[in-house]
């Protein structure tokens, strides 16, 4: 069942977007291979061109880089980091992360909307990390976002789809790929996101904190594949745990 993911004007077969930076750079290649990953994010703050331990040196040939604006606290800073990413040869895709809260690392939707407008005006394929709020998502779509990346739970928490109901609304209402970004802690949760109709799942901590990092990448690939297949197969309705009335509620119609 072919169902490519299209972001900007690029086609991808994989729906597993890999985060980086939380596991040893030497493992990057194995994780990407096991996960069947085609898009990997990286923090521009970790790039160290010409220096030691440059994350860019570890990204295999052929991978699409999705640099993020980690460290930006407002739209202007995000724009400057995006330009830097372009100069470093990372291409035009940019994951917009604007965070003014050092404790929970929750995104600032208002600044992000502003940033999307500035970035798309400069030809970037902007993908905002956001709180799953419908109005904000619409504004981001209007500002030119190429996809939206709502969080499932606080970043690094591995708590899964705590925002599930809101993500379902975004999937239904926004005509852009919806990619669950943060909080996914288990392959089963990634599978669930795909069953809901999300376009892709991004994970980092869930893999980085596994005992066997490359093996967990395999588990995520399989779960994501199962999820998208289930979604495309049109899952049957799950009966709610409700009792049935002993006599039909519309039985009175016959007695009229």
């Amino acid at each position, binding site marked *: 069942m072919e169902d490519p993911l299209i972001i900007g004007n690029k086609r991808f077969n994989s729906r597993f977007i890999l985060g980086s*930076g*939380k*596991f*040893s*750079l030497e493992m990057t290649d194995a994780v990407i291979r096991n996960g069947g990953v085609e898009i990997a994010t990286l*923090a*521009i*703050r*970790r*790039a*160290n061109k010409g*220096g*030691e*331990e*440059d994350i860019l040196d570890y990204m295999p040939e052929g991978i699409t880089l999705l640099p993020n604006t980690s*460290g*930006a*606290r407002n739209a*202007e*800073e995000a724009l*400057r*980091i995006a330009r*830097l990413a372009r100069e470093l040869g990372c291409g035009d895709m940019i994951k917009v992360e604007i*965070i*003014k*809260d*050092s*404790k*929970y*690392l929750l995104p600032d939707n208002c600044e992000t909307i502003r940033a999307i407008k500035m970035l798309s005006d400069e030809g970037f394929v902007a993908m905002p990390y956001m709180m799953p709020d419908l109005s904000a998502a619409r504004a981001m779509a209007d500002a030119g976002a190429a996809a939206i990346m709502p969080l499932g739970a606080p970043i*690094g*928490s*591995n708590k899964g789809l705590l925002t599930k109901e809101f993500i379902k609304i975004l999937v239904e209402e926004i005509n852009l790929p919806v990619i669950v970004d943060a909080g996914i802690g288990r392959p089963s949760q990634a599978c669930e996101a795909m069953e809901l109709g999300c376009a892709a799942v991004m994970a*980092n*901590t869930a893999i*980085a*904190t596994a005992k066997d990092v490359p093996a967990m990448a395999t588990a995520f690939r399989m779960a994501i594949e199962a999820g998208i297949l289930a979604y495309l197969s049109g899952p049957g309705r799950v009966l709610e745990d409700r009792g049935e009335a002993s006599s039909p509620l519309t039985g009175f119609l016959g007695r009229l």
Partner: protein
Amino acid sequence: MPLIKVDAEEYYDNMERLPTDLMDQVLALTKEFDPAKYTSSDVVRALEKDHLLPEDFAALLSPAADPYLEKMAERARDETRRHFGNSVCMFTPIYTSNYCTNQCVYCGFNCKNQIHRAKLSIEEVDTEMKAIASTGLTEILILTGESRTMSDIEYIGECIKVAAKYFSSIGMEVYPMNSDEYRYLRDCGADYVTVFQETYDPKRYAELHLGGPKRIFSYRFNAQERALRGGMRGVAFGALLGLGDFRKDAFSCGMHAYLLQRKYPHAEISFSLPRLRPCISNEKDDNPVHERQLLQVALAYRIFMPFAGETISTRECKDFRDNIVGLCATKISAGVCVGIGGRAEEEKGDEQFDISDPRSVEEVRKALVDKGLQPVFNDYVRV
């Protein structure tokens, strides 16, 4: 400027007064904190919580938590991995001047000490920094003794401008200053400010800081807040454990950081873990804070504020440092000289304290890799 000030709260004319009650809050909470009142069930309850409250942090610092050190280490390691993965940032300090106008009884730079005083010229700073940059490091911490005449704001600014040529992240650990001065140094290229309160007990503070502007407890206390108002990105806190009651000092230090982050949510917070070590002013090593106690404090900071950075100093030995980075510390110094100069140039001035881990950048990097950790040379983009 008189050297000895009788009143520890007598501000100099040029010192900015901030309208803030942060210090009063921290001191009031510390006054209430009685380490002896906590029980093992308080500790267990704290460790079971997702997000800890100040009361839980207090329990983890209490003697009742000592038998739970292993449990604390497990929780701390998990938090560290969730927030930082296996990455550990590397940096090094550079001391550019050891002239000091303060009289801190425990410090090697004490103005009454007969030590070799020196200050690097800007050309020498450039040569030293170039040598440091050749090791691959991209983060530097600039330190001076506290002398507004020998290392004035302009001098520090020039050092920072030189650093900006070679490094992507620049910290400074110099005397506390006013918001506009912090803003000027930020504009020169500085990113974060470290100020150790040393001890948070005002009475003990007055006994230890006999003279110089450092004697003014509240001006020092509010330095981080002024730095944030001046536009600095991050601030670091530290109590020099062993000067006063270390549990109370660690509690105050944690609350200082916690309350300031609540007031300035964007601020990047980090803790340093200095412990009193032998030096010219303090030759005996009789600190009641042993490695076990230091670890308890380090773990408690991590569990209470899992997002905060933690820096482990070369005051500690190699084995302690190599183990603590896997558990809670996220930043480690390497290739350290605590004298004035000494990398590219011959050392011109004496050290502030003795270091216990003289390893080079390459040796520390290798030790991290051997432990399955990821040495990070660059973690900052100046925008």
